[in-house]
């Protein structure tokens, strides 16, 4: 056995390791996915009672359904973000993560990637369900819809990871995550609803280039902020 | 005049808010200052 310790992994490798660990844990238990999917379903049903299908058809699908879709996704994503950090806290694994000799920015990056993957899986279920419940044709609009959803989910997952990490340190912090995350995510939300409406109307996405570019910029910005503040966020455990 | 009623309430809210906050700060500060003096005297004693 070599007497020398192996060099700590570089940024990308570390992030990949963290992401793989998170996804493996989730893959085995599927706890987080089940909770967020169930919650999403319930929210959709509540919306169906709040705005019945006739009303939606009469008013115009593209006016109401994008908003409903993103509200549902926002709240069920939060369920997912909370649980992703809760398991760490329960077994004090965050201490292990924080003192590991890797760039803490890489840890947050890996977690954000795992959160994004889980979010996309959630959306893969919720979006078709929304189409079914509210009689929206998702199939013809699928490619631009997928692009819009992916772009905005990246930002949402990154913000959710930042706030989720912060909140996981506080006692009974889970209740907070929505309160902190949603106001900060307003620009993403506005853009998501607007672009989704454009897609449902069948208009070309190029008309929303302004929104899409800004969202892409925000995705990068949130990533940089996470990277810069990672040390402060993951300092103690 | 309805306009004046709104004006009155607007100014009232602002002044109650600002003065109230200043007063509460003052109260908290004097309470803390008293505690500090007590603690410091106890230490010297």
């Amino acid at each position, binding site marked *: 056995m070599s007497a020398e310790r192996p060099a700590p992994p570089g940024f990308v490798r570390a992030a990949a390791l963290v992401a793989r660990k998170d996804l493996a844990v989730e893959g085995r238990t599927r706890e987080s996915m089940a909770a967020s999917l169930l919650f999403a379903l319930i929210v959709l049903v509540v919306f169906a009672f709040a705005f019945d299908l006739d009303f939606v058809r009469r008013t115009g699908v593209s006016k109401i359904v994008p908003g409903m879709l993103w509200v549902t996704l926002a709240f069920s994503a939060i369920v997912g973000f909370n649980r992703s950090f809760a398991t760490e806290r329960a077994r004090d694994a965050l201490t292990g993560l924080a003192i590991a000799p890797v760039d803490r920015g890489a840890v947050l990056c890996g977690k954000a990637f795992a959160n994004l993957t889980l979010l996309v899986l959630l959306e893969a279920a919720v979006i078709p369900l929304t189409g079914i419940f509210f009689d929206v044709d998702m199939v013809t609009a699928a490619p631009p819809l997928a692009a819009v959803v992916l772009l905005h989910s990246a930002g949402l997952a990154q913000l959710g990871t930042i706030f989720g990490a912060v909140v996981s340190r506080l006692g009974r912090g889970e209740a907070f995550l929505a309160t902190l995350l949603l106001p900060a995510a307003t620009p993403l939300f506005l853009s998501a609803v607007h672009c989704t409406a454009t897609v449902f109307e069948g208009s070309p996405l190029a008309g929303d280039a302004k929104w899409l570019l800004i969202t892409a910029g925000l995705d990068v910005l949130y990533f940089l902020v996470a990277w810069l*503040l990672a040390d402060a966020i993951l300092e103690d455990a | 005049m309805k306009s004046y009623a709104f004006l009155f309430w607007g100014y009232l809210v*602002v002044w109650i808010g600002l003065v109230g906050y200043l007063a509460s*700060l003052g109260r908290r500060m004097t309470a803390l200052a008293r505690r500090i003096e007590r603690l410091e005297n106890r230490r010297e004693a």
Partner: protein
Amino acid sequence: MRTGLNRTFAAVLVVSAVLIGCALGLIFLVAPEEKVMGAVQKIFYFHVPIAAMTFLSVFLLLAGGAGYLWTRRAIWDHLAVAASEVGLLFCTLVLITGPIWAKPAWGVWWTWEAKLTTTLILWLLLAGCLLARRYAATPEQGARIGAVLGIVAALDVPIVYKAVDWWRGQHPIVFGPGKTNPLAPGMSEAFGVSMLAVLTLYLVLLIARIRLSSLEERIAELEDASGRFR
């Protein structure tokens, strides 16, 4: 009884009181009543400066949070907390005086246009920062989390503003690029003095709040040292 607020502070407090008196005098005795909106327009003389101070608070919060994370010296945290708290107060006042002005002026209490919506979001962000600090396990953790949340909130505010602005826009724009001064004579002076008065009062509250944090810090030191409480 030493609160640590000395003569200079008392002097500034007196100055701000005097300025407020002057401002009120100018507003009610000198400035003419606005043609369209009537007397209620006079709320504007305080509404706008208070809103300006709210945005100054955001900047100070950013500075305090960044300064604390950079240097880990308590004074920066004191600045961040004071900026959050006083900022939240001023933000609340904006959100109350705004609708009070809007209802007689535009006929509605609220619209979802850029400035109003951003101020509401800012209120939520500041309240969230302060609330999160309370749940922290130790003061150091509270300071650190408060700094992180404060920085994120401060960076987010301009982004929120731009996003909502694209989404809609309707706030009366009194001062804008390329506009000649739309205030009648008599109004400008009242507005200028009000701005100065509110700025001075804001600084008074900020300094007092920072001083309060220092006192709390001193108590924690003394209690730690005496070993009895903890």
